[in-house]
């Protein structure tokens, strides 16, 4: 597979947007399951109650890859890692819009054999169009 061509053709353009409503109970469960103890994450009555820092990493759009993206995975795939940039708090009741693009594509070999890394970037904005976070998801597909 020609990775350079794949990258040139499929990176850098927005291929999906999706809206998500932020639910208070999900914020609390996420925070408590992750061992958060700060009241701004665990107490819905706190003046600064907000979603945990990496909360937006749970959202995925209507499409994970652009329409007509070539089928690479013959053996399956997995999540190789995530990078979350926090820009502004997410509050209960917010409507967050996530815009997806492919940020990078590269290949390498590892313990599980040859892998193609697709870096999926989602930019999240709230209903006031304020940037709240950017999440890079490194998904591995195994040819």
């Amino acid at each position, binding site marked *: 597979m020609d990775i350079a061509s794949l990258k040139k053709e499929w990176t850098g353009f927005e291929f999906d947007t999706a809206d998500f409503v932020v639910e208070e109970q999900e914020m609390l469960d996420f925070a408590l399951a992750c061992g958060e103890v700060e009241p701004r994450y665990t107490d819905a009555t706190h003046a600064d109650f907000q979603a945990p820092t990496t909360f937006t990493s749970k959202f995925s759009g209507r499409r994970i890859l652009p329409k007509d993206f070539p089928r690479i995975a013959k053996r399956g795939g997995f999540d190789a890692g995530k990078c979350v940039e926090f820009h502004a708090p997410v509050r209960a009741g917010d409507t967050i819009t996530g815009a997806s693009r492919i940020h990078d594509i*590269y*290949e*390498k*070999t*590892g*313990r*599980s*054999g*040859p892998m193609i*890394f697709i870096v999926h970037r989602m930019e999240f904005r709230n209903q006031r169009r304020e940037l709240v976070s950017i999440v890079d998801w490194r998904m591995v597909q195994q040819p």
Partner: protein
Amino acid sequence: MILDLHNHSVASDDGRAKVENYCQWISNRKLPLDGFVLTEHRQFDQASDYRALEDEYGLLVLKASEVETDYGHVLVYGVNEDLLHAFDFTSINLSLELVIKEADRCGAIAVPCHPGRPKVGMCAHYAERGPVEGVSVIETYNGGSRGDENERALELAKTHGYAGIGGSDAHIVSHIGRYGTKIDREIKDEEDLVRALRDGAFEAVTWT
């Protein structure tokens, strides 16, 4: 001199360490290292110049590469212009025979790393296809190894008479200095290192 011969910086796709922070860590933790080598994945970082850091911290900072072959990953020390034109460092399908041959021709040395690791280590490939000529040194102590992977590497070295080096395979700052290589002479640059590795003037060491 003791050098940590296998580490990655932010220049590698999965590296998260800044080189200055490696230097600070070695100094702060008083690690018994005289320097380290940056072995970036599938590239040679020609642009970076670490001489100022070397002067500030009194450490030797050398540059090398980790490439991917049909017998697993290989560290290449002494990368130069000739070698950069000899094969594609970004390929994940290089021939180990070619990498060894071209390294020898260009005055560098190719050292298979983490040989005990599945798929990307030499042991599994040797078991299937037999040994490759031209290997003289392998990495016997790798800081990222799991289970008995280092033991398998040591066994391979013993079976084939290979000398062994040590390296941390650090991708974050705090992982540098888990293993090293004790070299019996002063090393000032990459050429000195290649000569020492060719002469067998070293042993893999650990202090953790």
